[in-house]
Structures are given as C-alpha cells and as structure tokens.
C-alpha cells in the first residue's frame, strides 16, 4: 500500500470504529435513562406506565408492614401518597419518617412495585430527590392557600 492509501485506510477505519462506538453508546444511553417522579406527579398520572422510573419522598410513619419477605410501605411528599411493595431486604437506613428513593414500575391500580430501594449512607442524610419532592409539594400547597 502507498503511504497515502495507508493514511486513508487508518482514517476511515478510525472513523468507522468511532461511529459504531457512538451509535452503540447513544442507543444504550437512550433506553437506560431512568427518570424521577414525585408522588404528586405519579398521582397526577404523569409517570410512565410500563417503563421503570424512580419515586422519592418520605416513608409514612406507621405504614411499614413486614410480615413476609415482601415489605409494604407508603411513600409520601406530604401532599400525595403512593403505596410501594418491595420483595427483599430493605437497606440499613430505611426507616419510617426518613427519606427514600425507590426504582420500579407502576401497576394499573396505582401501586408501585420496587425492584430496588436505594441505600443512602448517612442517617442525617436526605436523598436530594426526596427533599426536592417534599419541597415541591410544600410550594404547591402554599400557592393554593394564597
């Protein structure tokens, strides 16, 4: 091969690799974004029906039931409440009255089945998503009162 052809081959090969990699990456990226919704948004029907998403807020006091391996509790942003069920062991920092973020799917009857309950690693720590959900709900009620 002449040097010019060689250079051309390298450039074409490089661009092709980059193109394939970029397509692959963006494709996987699009289909794996997980969006976050507050309980109010879920109650208003803004959340997707089939796709997995995240929900965050506070675990309602006295709502946790743990008879079998399935745990049931209510996530609230102080305005709306969403019942959640999770099969498995809850993380150490899960407790009533504290913030929580869960990932899963919403069934037709408005119940959320979590596949993952996210563990945050400090008792004084509030997941930013959960904090945002509560703040949003507070703002909404304040506007209503005025």
């Amino acid at each position, binding site marked *: 091969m002449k040097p010019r052809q060689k250079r051309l081959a390298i450039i074409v090969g490089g661009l092709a690799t*980059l193109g394939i990699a970029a397509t692959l990456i963006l494709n*996987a*990226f699009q289909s794996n974004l*997980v969006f976050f919704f507050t309980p109010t948004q879920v109650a208003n029907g803004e959340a997707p029906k089939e796709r997995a998403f995240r929900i965050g807020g506070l675990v309602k006091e006295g709502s946790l039931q743990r008879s079998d391996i399935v745990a049931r509790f209510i996530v609230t942003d102080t305005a709306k409440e969403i019942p959640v069920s999770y099969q498995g062991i809850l993380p150490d920092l899960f407790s009533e009255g504290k913030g929580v973020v869960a990932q899963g799917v919403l069934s037709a009857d408005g119940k959320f089945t979590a596949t993952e309950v996210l563990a945050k690693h400090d008792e004084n720590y509030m997941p930013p998503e959960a904090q945002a959900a509560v703040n949003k709900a507070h703002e909404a009620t304040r506007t209503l009162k005025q």
Partner: protein
Amino acid sequence: MIPEIGSFALVLALLVALVQGSLPLIGAQRGIPAWIALARPASSMLFLLIAVAFGCLTASFINNDFSVVYVAQHSNSRLPLEYRISGVWGGHEGSLLLWVLMLSLWSLAVAAFSRSLPDDMVARVQGVLGLVAAGFILFILLTSSPFERLLPGAEDGRDLNPLLQDPGLIFHPPMLYMGYVGFSVAFAFAIAALLSGRLDAAWARWSRPWTTAAWIFLTLGIGLGSIWAYYELGWGGWWFWDPVENASFLPWLVGTALIHSLAVTEKRGSFKNWTVLLAIGAFSLSLLGTFLVRSGVLSSVHAFASDPKRGIFILVFLAVVVGSSLTLFAWRAPKVSLGGAFALMSRETLLLINNVLLLSAAGAVLLGTLYPLVIDALNLGKLSVGPPYFNAVFTPLMVPLLFLMAVGPVARWKHTSLAEIARPLRWAFGIAVAAGVSIPFFYGGWSGSVALGMGLAIWIVGASVLQILARTRSGLPPRAFWGMHLAHMGVAVTVVGIVMVTQYESERDVRMAPGDTVKTGGYQIRFLGVEGISGPNYNAARGNLELLKDGQLVMPLHPEKRKYLSSAMPMTEAFIDPGLTRDIYVSLGDPLEGGDGAWSVRVYYKPFVSWIWGGAVLMALGGLLAASDRRYRLKSTAARAGKLAAQGAAS
C-alpha cells in the same frame, strides 16, 4: 495549641509551594542556575511542612481534642485507636489534607529518584507540582480547614460514620489518592516537556515508571474499594457503576491508555502529541474525580458535605489546569516531530486500537456519569443512568480489547504480517475456543457470555504462557517483559471472576425461622436463631447459622446487625466464608412479624468472586515489575559513574 501549629504549617506550606511553583519554572526558562537549584530543597520543605500539619491533625484525633470541629464531627472517645487514626481521612477536610500530603510525597520522590535527569527538567517538573500543590493548599485554607476550633469544645464527638469503621477504610483512601495524585507526576512531566520543547523518547522513558507507579496504586485502590463495598455495604455487589466508583475508574482507563501510548513514544518516538494529551487527560480526570466526590454534587457515601463554595473552587481550579495546559499544548504541539512511520499491520496500530477502545470506554462512562448532573444543573428534571447502560456499552468495547491484548505483544514494531502473529498463537486460539465452549457445560449449563469470557481469558493466558516459553529459551527476559505478561494475565483472572459471578451467582432474600434450611450452590444453610451481643462501641444482634454440606457441618456462620451507641444508624455486618472457587455470603435483614423468631436473611452464593480482586493484585504486581525494570535505572548508574569519574579527575 497543636491545631494552631498545624494551621500555621499549612500557611507556610502554601508560601513554599508558591516559591516551588514559580522560581524554578522561571529559572529553567531563563537559565538561572540558582533558581533551578531551588526545586529540590523546596520540595523537601513542602513535604516536611505538610507532614507537620498532617501530624498535628492526627495528634488531635488521638488526643480526642473535641474542640476541633473536624475531630468532633468524625471521632468519638469510644472509637478504637486505629479508627481514630484512619478517621483523619474519614471526612472532607482531612482527606484533602491527605491528598496534598500524597502530592508532596510524590514531589519528594521525584526529587530523590531523578538524579539522572537534567536539572532544568527536574526544576520544571517540580514547578508544575508546586503549582498544583499551591492550588490545593489554598483550597484547604480558604474553604475547608480541618483545624477550625469549636468554642466551647464539644463534650464528645459525633463519631465516625460506622460504615467507615472498617480495616478497608484504613487502606482504601490512601491507595486511591496515591493513584489519583500520582498522575500529577505524569502530567508535570508532560507540561515540562512541552515547556522545554524536548518532547522525545528520553522524556517518555522518564515518565514511564512514574505513570506505572501511579497506575499500580490506583489499581489497588479501586480493588480495595470494590472489596470494601462487597463485604461492608451488605449487598454482596462488587461494582455498582456508582458515580464515585466511575470517578476513580475514569482516570484508570485513561491512565491505562497512557501507559500503552508511552510505550510507543519511548520505543518508536511516535504518538508524542497523543501521549501528552493522555497525560493531561488522566490528571484532569483525577481532578474531576476529586471535584465529583468532594463538592457534594453526588449523593453517595463519599459526599460528606455539600458546600457550593468548595465545588466552585475545584471547578475553577479544574478549568485553569485544563485550560492552561491545553493552551500550552496548542502552542507547542505543531512543533513536535511525528516520529517513526509504521505499517497498517504493526504493534503501533494495535496499540492505537487499544487507546481508541479504552478512550471510547472512558467517554461512555463519563457520559453516563455527568449527564444526570448536567440535566439537574440545568433544571431539566432529575434522572439517573443505571448499570444496564454501563454494562451494555462496556462489554462490546472490552471484547475486542481483550482479544487484541493477546495479539499486541506478538506483533512486531513498524511492520508485521498476519502469519507472524498467527503462527505462535494458533495453539492458544485452539485451546481457548475448545475450553470456552466446553466450560459452561461443566459448570451448570450453556451460556454464551461465559463461553466468550472464559475463551478470551484462556486466550490471553495461553498467549502469554506461549510467549514466555518462547522467550525464556534465549536467556532471561527483562522485568518489563514479565510485568507486561503478568498484568495481562491479571486482566484475564479478573475477567474470569466477573464472568463466573455474573452468570452463576445465586442471590436470595429469604424468611427464616429457627430450624429452617435453605439450599444454595450445593450447600445447605440452617438458621438457629439470633442472640444479643455487645462490642466496644456498639450492640449487635448476632445470627447463629450453620453451613452444611451433605448434612455435615462445614462451619458456623455469624452475621451481625449492629447498632452503634453514638448513632441510631444500624449496620449490617455480613458473614463471608471466602474460597478460591466460591464465597458463601450471609447477612441479616430484619426480624419479621409472626412471633416465631423469624428473620429475613440474605443468602448469596458467589462463584469465583475473589478472582476479580486477585486479578487486580496480579495487575499491580505486573506494574511493579515493569516500573522496576533495569533500563529505567541504567542511565542513573551511568550518570553516577560519570560523576564519580569527574570527581576523581578533579581531586
């Protein structure tokens, strides 16, 4: 008094760092020998002052001085001594001090082991390191001093986060930081070479052992973090694609690319510009990692505090470092010669593909890590990118990388032919295909991913063994040769671990009442009950379980659920029976309603999981062999002999 001494030492260290970061650099540009000579003593002084500051903070921790805010927040009088010492880097301020201590240690090491380098080169390298150190010390003094007082002092401290009270924490952060900060040396060498205009093979040879040394620490640091997550977080996972993990993985990917690109620059004089860019990139990603972890933009175990001032400072610092080094690069790069030409089929091309694949992987990880942050910062909503994305992107990029890893070392520089590559490797290929296809059947059912992964691992090991056999026939090869093959086989070992545990692990959360038995991976686990015990600074519920094989007791299992006295936070302590081919992993969940003493129990069977970290250790050992190769020291012996001869002639 002690904290004030520490604070004062830090201020002095800032002044020394500013001197180290200015005079030697100017001296090297203008040719002023006295200013050039300042570089080495300045770096010793800098290390001494920061060591004093670090020692003062450690002393405050050991003495339980709760009038220091940082100590009050991260320690407690009941905390055992070893955790009071490791607590020094258990929070934001202290870990930054550790960062700077590591930086000054690297700077000192460069001063000590670079006797053979031209003095102006040393001066430039030390100058750049001094500037980086000045930036970080300024950051500590302005936004995050660990020596601030609390008046009046606290009765007792708030205690170290129980998750961090673990032997893993003693070693994980220092290792990781040594790696992060170590890339500053490669960066400093690159900038020094750009400044002096001597971007040549000698420069590549000087910076190779330093880059490899940093990479060794980073490899071990990431491995330790993964082990820690595995046994301490109570989830049994070894990698979560958590933003903080990604922050340490990004410099590793680019650093690995840099090591390979440096090889081309040293041996063939090619890829110079590319190598410089990689050195700048690896260090910038280390800084980005520090920013992500320390600014509080991420919600994770590592985000101890969120203070926007800190985030902005690091971001500005990052912008200055990246901006100025890229400007310098743009100014100098066109003058750099291109180096040796090479054919399409050559080791150069294979290493170029290695670089493209590693950087594509780094780019994909960077996208998945930063995208949610950017979207959130622009107020476009909250979202996250999950592990499926990373797995979907990472695997296809790694398959060709692993395949070519066996081919690269066989290929000759400049020009090689397919026959030259295929002939020595045909046996390895045959064995790899046969073993890859058959192993899944032996191990519990066909799986394409296991066949591919095991095939690739055997292909890499087979190719390395064949080359070692061929090479040792003609005398003992140098350490670098052993190092490369050991590191490559380490990757293969890690791949075996990942593939096997991903495919054949069993994870079950079950309800167990006393007397209940569950089966997992050929074993039975019997639950006997839970009893209360108390430790030095915690109370715990301790599970009594038995691991049985064919009805025979193998060993008792005692997972714990701890409640630390100083906090309401419970802690799951998993019990692991580790093994070469499998780990048995049990942890306690919660007591369940029903009145029969039942608990939720997590029972995991993890085949070959320890290979993941065993591979990392092999990679690090390989790096150690490569970095200690004779040819990096040859010149220094020659130089010393020259100096001695000169002295002899003078006297």
